[in-house]
């Protein structure tokens, strides 16, 4: 079958609008990645080959740290965002918390975890694991825009004071900086300040935020922060965790002195080097990226709103990632929309249950209260730094016809968004 999409130099090209899922490698990252395969030495070895690898890793650590305004010694490399998040949660049930008098005094006996109902599954599942292990885990609700409920948050933070029971005091708060589906950005600085006032540790999953909006660990004053390389035009399988100096942390993967004994396993030199380059470029391009993707996002949003009746833009109207546009098309089902777009050369993602093979639509959309009909009919477009106006216009040309077609087949009238 012929490839559909925008013609570029006579070649049919697909229009990829799923950059929140993953990104292609930037050509210079790819170049560094491939070149680094020749630095085969084990970064832990003392000989020349080892020293060459270690030096490259050291430089990459500085570059990754610089992207989030951290010190290099506050960064550990992991296999990705999921591992970084798991490492933080695992720490909360580890001996790390009792290792010093200071730690024991600060967090001993605390058994309450606060997170949100819109986190990535790796945080949700890690939190549920702690629940199984006897912790009290609270999943904060969000408003229709995806912003966490501050009143509920304050109440949970102060629960230990009203009950007088130390177990009710918060040990860890974990709130994602920007949501992967709807793009809503939380006020992490304020949320972290409130957590610290209550004596809790604060973690944020910044996998979707880093490289898209400014992330400054000093300004935010968080204790832990997660980032991933493949969301910022680097290879998959490499991520990092920022751990503020002096905060408790326990190795999830044991048995080696790498990463200050906080993450065992031979250094993945090429991936780490590529991460360094990707982080450097993301930092350099940040202002440009924000300006460019926001203009494309608005073009797509305005075009869809003008061309298709009865649609809904999900997420916060302003506090939103510049590249993320989540849209519900009532009367049309998300998997069907996604696959028709795919046939026409457009790649995006959906919160529909059918696409995941489960019965539940996107937990994020459900948490914002949009209702299952709108959640099943949702499509997330996530724009990249090289997306063009021409590509957005192609999407605006094709998608209205897809929605018209599917709504025509549907038992659901688009207005009501419910049966008949």
């Amino acid at each position, binding site marked *: 079958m012929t490839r559909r999409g925008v013609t570029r130099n006579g070649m049919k090209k697909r229009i990829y609008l799923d950059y929140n899922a993953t990104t292609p490698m930037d050509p210079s990252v790819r170049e560094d990645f491939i070149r680094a395969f020749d630095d085969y030495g084990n970064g832990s070895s003392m000989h020349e080959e080892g020293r060459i690898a270690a030096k490259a890793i050291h430089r990459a650590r500085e570059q990754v740290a610089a992207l989030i305004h951290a010190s290099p010694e506050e960064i550990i490399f992991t296999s990705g965002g999921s591992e970084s998040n798991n490492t933080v949660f695992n720490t909360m049930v580890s001996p790390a918390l009792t290792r010093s008098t200071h730690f024991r005094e600060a967090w001993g006996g605390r058994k309450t975890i606060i997170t949100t109902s819109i986190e990535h599954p790796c945080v949700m599942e890690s939190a549920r694991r702690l629940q199984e292990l006897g912790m009290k885990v609270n999943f904060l609700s969000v408003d229709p825009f995806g912003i966490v409920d501050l009143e509920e948050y304050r109440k949970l933070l102060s629960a230990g004071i009203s009950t007088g029971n130390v177990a009710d005091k918060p040990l860890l708060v974990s709130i994602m900086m920007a949501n992967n589906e709807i793009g809503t950005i939380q006020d992490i600085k304020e949320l972290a300040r409130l957590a610290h006032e209550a004596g809790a540790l604060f973690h944020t999953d910044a996998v979707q935020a880093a490289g898209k909006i400014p992330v400054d660990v000093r300004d935010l004053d968080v204790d832990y922060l997660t980032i991933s390389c493949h969301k910022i035009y680097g290879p998959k399988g490499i991520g990092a965790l920022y751990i503020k100096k002096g905060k408790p942390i326990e190795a999830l993967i044991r048995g080696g002195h790498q990463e200050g004994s906080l993450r065992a396993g031979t250094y993945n030199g090429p991936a780490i080097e590529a991460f360094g380059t990707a982080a450097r470029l993301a930092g350099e391009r940040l202002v440009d990226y924000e300006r460019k993707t926001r203009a494309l996002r608005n073009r797509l949003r305005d075009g869809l709103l003008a061309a298709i009746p009865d649609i809904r833009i999900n997420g916060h109207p302003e506090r939103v990632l510049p590249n993320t546009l989540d849209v519900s098309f009532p009367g049309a089902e998300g998997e069907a929309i996604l696959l028709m777009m795919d*046939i026409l050369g457009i790649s995006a993602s959906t919160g529909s*249950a059918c696409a995941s093979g489960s*019965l539940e639509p996107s937990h994020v959309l459900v948490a914002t209260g949009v209702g299952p009909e709108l959640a099943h009919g949702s499509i997330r477009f996530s724009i990249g730094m090289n997306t063009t106006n021409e590509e957005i216009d192609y999407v605006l040309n094709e998608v209205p016809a897809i929605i018209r077609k599917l709504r025509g087949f549907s038992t659901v009238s688009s207005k009501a968004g419910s049966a008949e």
Partner: protein
Amino acid sequence: MSDWVYSDVVKDHFMNPRNVLEEDESSWPCDGRGIVGNIKCGDQMLILIRVKDGKIADCRWKTYGCASALASTSILSEAIKGMSLEDAYILKPEDIVAKLGGLPSNKIHCSVLGDKALRAAIDDYLERNKLPSLKGREHTEVICTCLNVTSNDIEEAYKAGDRTWEDLQARTKIGTACGGCKMRTLELLHQLEHLYGE
């Protein structure tokens, strides 16, 4: 383009559905109407039939659902034209899946609505015309061969409120001998949840 998610037949019926009613329902007067499924679970199917001499003379449908749900209704609509009501009544999801050239296992439940909507339409036709009901004639699958528990028994148990393997065991004794039918039963529960979903 590399291999698509579904078979070529699914793709063809998805992109060019047959007998779909794109206009309002009232534009196609029918002899029998059946609607099943639930928007909350992501799909719903409506089948309209016209009957002549005990056979399905023509049909139209509407579906809210994913690609495999749309394709399975489309292929069903082709298959039933000219079929006697009795034969149409015993169609089962497996027949539709086979015509589609197979579906991934996690999408089978998207094909179970079509035959149910069709039976509902036939029931409606028979009731409207005060003709003898065909209820009970539909295909049933023996799920638990040790204790002879059928898919119908499980559906009835579901309607009565059973939601888990343990609920079903308490009511029907299913799988209390060898237990080999547990996986198939859980699949069925999944389908029923899809169909009746609260």
